[in-house]
């Protein structure tokens, strides 16, 4: 069984989720089963983390041919990049079962399904398999949002589903193009992500395929201007769904860019990187500015999440080892800070029955522990040194400055923009005088506090002693900038920016 650790981590929640869906169980049982399974995945993930040796190559590889005639395989494996997204989902999801009041059975079933699918997506080493999990991820979200969402759930559900599927179709076409190109050049069929990395496609068709992938990923991340599904979906979705969307699923979009697009389209990617980096910073500013005008705290956090995703995107497109490593680090930091803020928002909503900032105030004096935890997550989200948020953001800004000074400076603006809306929110909700809705706000119970303690500690430990984490990431990210000699050399021109990168990164 332990030879197939990744498979177990993928299919344990999926099978459990399916059983929950069809077995006549009570809500409480469903909740307990969900919690148990997610804990089991957490335990397994710790095993994976401990066993991960950071060679820069795929580890924990599983390979079973699936459709041999087309070279499609059930092929799993993780590197330092997938590891951290995997860990984030394994560590964070158990909290969801503890924190909120018992809900419908289907809700827990869908949570399990989405966990399995997300883990599958980051473990997949085959494009078709990746695509399958990518699509499967959306289904539980569709049901959770559509069935258990807020009053305006239907339009929100339609928008996120149709929008994402539209992107997925483009991706399907693009990945078919990759396989065809690979076949044309080598004479064999394969959908292996690793092998696609040996391709180095350029030209108009390649650019089209690049944009096919990029639009799919940009919708998921979401990258400006493809973010318009986000505020509605994040606001209307039940807390757990928003949390899953923001903390992990968005990151799988970034992961796709790093894993699939960057290696396969090296030259074209370098050509359009500046364009995408601008999309990132514009998105950061746009969503950050919008956040300050929100009257609904969940919506404010939704824009904040989108704004931070802009920074993460900049890290990917800056194309140097500092920025990319910072991106992976920031992915986890964002999950544990901005993602976790949604959990706090969920608790706020559950206890005050309002999402309006104007109705709240003075919670810090009513509920000091809640306020303290919220403040720590908030400070991590604005990148205060000593929290995980700083390390990632600093590395991204550093890398962005090298890539392009203007991008670097604009990325730096997030230091200011983030603080503006967050302090404003904190002031209105936690400081000032209590209002009726927040007058008797109950502080976190010991069990709830205990559920948050690991993630709060993680925020601090990752900020104070990031070295052990970075050591697992760096070999995988550094690989992208090592002397990459494509087997199938097609490119004729090397852009100066890339050439400079390649030479300096070797040192």
């Amino acid at each position, binding site marked *: 069984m332990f030879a197939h650790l990744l498979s177990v981590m993928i299919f344990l929640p999926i099978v459990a989720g399916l059983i929950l869906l069809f077995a006549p169980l009570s809500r409480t049982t469903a909740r307990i089963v969900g919690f148990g399974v997610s804990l089991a995945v957490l335990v397994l993930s710790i095993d994976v983390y401990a066993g991960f040796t950071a060679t820069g190559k795929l580890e924990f590889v599983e390979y079973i041919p699936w459709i041999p005639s087309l070279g499609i395989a059930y092929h799993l494996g993780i590197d330092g990049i997938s590891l951290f997204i995997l860990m984030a989902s394994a560590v964070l999801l158990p909290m969801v079962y503890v924190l909120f009041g018992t809900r419908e059975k289907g809700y827990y079933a869908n949570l399990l399904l989405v966990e399995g699918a997300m883990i599958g997506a980051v473990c997949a080493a085959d494009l078709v398999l990746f695509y399958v999990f990518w699509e499967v991820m959306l289904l539980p979200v569709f049901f959770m949002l559509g069935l258990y969402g807020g009053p305006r759930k239907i339009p929100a559900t339609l928008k996120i589903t149709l929008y994402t599927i539209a992107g997925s179709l483009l991706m399907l076409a693009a990945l078919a193009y990759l396989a065809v190109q690979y076949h044309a050049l080598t004479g064999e069929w394969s959908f292996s992500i690793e092998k696609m990395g040996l391709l180095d496609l350029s030209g108009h068709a390649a650019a089209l395929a690049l944009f096919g992938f990029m639009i799919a990923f940009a919708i998921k991340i979401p990258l400006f201007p493809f973010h318009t599904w986000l505020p509605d979906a994040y606001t209307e979705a039940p807390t757990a769904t928003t949390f899953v969307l923001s903390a992990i699923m968005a990151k799988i979009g970034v992961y796709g860019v790093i894993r699939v697009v960057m290696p396969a389209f090296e030259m074209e990617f370098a050509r359009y990187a500046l364009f995408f980096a601008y999309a990132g910073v514009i998105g950061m500013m746009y969503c950050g*500015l919008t956040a300050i005008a929100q009257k609904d705290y969940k919506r404010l956090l939704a824009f904040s999440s989108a704004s931070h995703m802009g920074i993460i995107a900049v890290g990917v497109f800056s194309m140097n080892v500092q920025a990319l490593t910072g991106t992976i680090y920031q992915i986890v930091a964002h999950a544990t800070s901005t993602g976790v803020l949604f959990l706090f928002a969920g608790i706020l909503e559950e206890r005050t029955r309002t999402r309006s900032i104007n109705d709240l105030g003075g919670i810090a004096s009513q509920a000091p522990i809640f306020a303290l935890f919220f403040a720590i997550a908030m400070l991590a989200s604005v990148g205060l040194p000593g929290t995980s948020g700083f390390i990632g953001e600093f590395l991204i800004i550093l890398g962005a400055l090298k890539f392009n000074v203007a991008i670097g400076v604009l990325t730096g603006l997030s*230091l200011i923009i983030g603080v503006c809306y967050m302090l404003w929110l904190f002031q209105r909700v936690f400081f000032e005088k209590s209002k009726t809705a927040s007058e008797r706000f109950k502080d976190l119970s010991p069990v709830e506090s205990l559920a948050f303690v690991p993630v709060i500690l993680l925020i601090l430990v990752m900020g104070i002693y990031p070295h052990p984490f970075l050591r697992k990431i760096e070999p995988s990210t550094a690989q992208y900038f090592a002397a990459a000699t494509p087997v199938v050399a097609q490119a004729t021109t090397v852009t100066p920016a890339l050439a400079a990168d390649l030479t300096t990164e070797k040192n």
Partner: protein
Amino acid sequence: MEHSTFYLGMIPLYPLLGAVCIGLFHVLTCKRWQVPPLVYGLLACVGPAMSFFLALRVFFELRALPLDARFFTYKAFTWFSVGDLHLDMGFLADPLSGLMLLFVTFIGTLIHVYSIGYMSGDKSYAKFFAYMNLFLGSMLILVLGDSPVVMFVGWEGVGLCSYLLISYYSEDRDNVLAGNKAFIVNRIGDLGFVLGMGFLFWAIGSHGFDFLSLKANAHMMTESSILIVCLLLFVGATGKSAQIPLYVWLPDAMAGPTPVSALIHAATMVTAGVYMVARFSFLYVEVAAAGMIVAWIGILTALLAAIFGMFQDDIKKVLAYSTVSQLGYMFAGVGVTAYSAGIFHVFTHAFFKALLFLGAGAVIYVLHHEQNIWKMGGLKKKMPITYCTMLIGALALAGCPPFAGFFSKDEILYSALANGHFFIWLIGVLVAAMTAYYTFRMIFVVFHGQPRDQQAYDHAHEAPLVMTVPLIILAIGALFAGFYNLPAIFGGEQMISHWLAPSVADQHPHDSFLLEFFVIATSVAAFAFGLWVAYKRFGKGAEEPVFTGFARFAYHKFYVDELYDAVFVRPYKAIGAEISEGVEPNMTDAPVTGIARLYMRVGTLVKVLQSGYVRVYAIYMVLGLGIMSFILSQSLN
């Protein structure tokens, strides 16, 4: 060496642990029983005191080292390492950080003791002390950090504590707004710091990003890149040290409890910018223009703040503007490459400004949180210790020989003139006169004359011992701190300048007794003039003035806050609202909803065709067959 420098890491750790302990202890006990406040107060004093003793040890160990190798480091662990960026959580003790350590921990400890008295009636006592300890820990990281990034950890940490303590009385909206303002304005500065670090890293950081390596490799940088780095770092300094144009947060920061104003917003944190420039002096000396910008911003801030200080009616605001003004002097000092003079002023200022704030705090405490000087008067008789100690502080601030402030200010003014910056010196002298004026205006109005509020006066009494003892200790400091750097003209040895020489890149002008004598004479004259005007106006009691004309303009601080509000804050919010309500639905989201609507419309159109009647479909079939046979016949021909 490793084992013997280990304690360097403990210096910031003790207060940080103190903060964690107080916090945990409070969280675990607050719901069950009431812990007597004194427990927290004493607990809070332990960390700073331990750090102070370790700081003494650092000092003596440094002194034992030979002059050219007077530093040691402690690397706790590899902090992070990515590509060619390598950072340790490392601490550096050298003469500069050693001196800062000494007085930061010393004054920090005193203020903690004082706070036991001042905060005695407060509800959330534990929170206050946890924040204070957290602050001191961050400040010590800032001072000891062996690389710009570790320094930045402390730099932002003190900013956070500053925010938390300004908005300490968080029920009042204005206090929270003041806290937000401090945090955001500081963040604007921090952006400069971060970008400065970024450029510095890409220039020479790959050979080691700690201060010692940077210093060794600074020669590899081009002049223009040094200038860019220096200016960006200085943007950071203007934020933290409240210089033009980012000074606006400091006066508002007085919303916090008075010990906070003394420790954070006068004695330690706000001088971090000066410390940082001195730390990077190896860069600033390379490019004269960078130093000049620093010096001019500094001296103009000194002037502006002194103008504002002359018209304030809140005792803490007077002191706040005097802090901004004195910080301006310090920057003028480091700007004209007299780094040791600037740091010397940081050192003396810490004593007398902490003293003045704590004295003001004692007054505020006994008057039940009255801060308006026009409600005070004649307190001399009721509070003799506070009066005497504050008088010493005032004399030191105003630059009266032989009090501490005189020597350090004189050193700066002398360096400015000797290095050929006549106008900086001239403005400096002018500000000196203004400083004497507003300082003694405050002293006269508060302590002399007749009581203006008889009822408050009757209830006034001397502050408790736990508050007056720190005042007395600080007063001794304010009296004698200046002697540590006595210039040669008074037979001194300039101990601090010599001490700092290995750390900072001072450029010494040739000593000229005549010039020095001239500078001293003008400074004393300026002090005497300011004192005289203040005495004439307020010495024997005065009524609250009604400001008109320029005075009114200055009373309202030239409407700078209003200007910033109109130019930055409001547009920022308006843009946010505009994007949220206008751009997002009508432009960004329009294509998406547009496509959806188009799809619906096409669907409606096509729907008409599918009527469900067989006869209609028969017509379609006939039409289709007709078209097909037409095409077929065409193609066959």
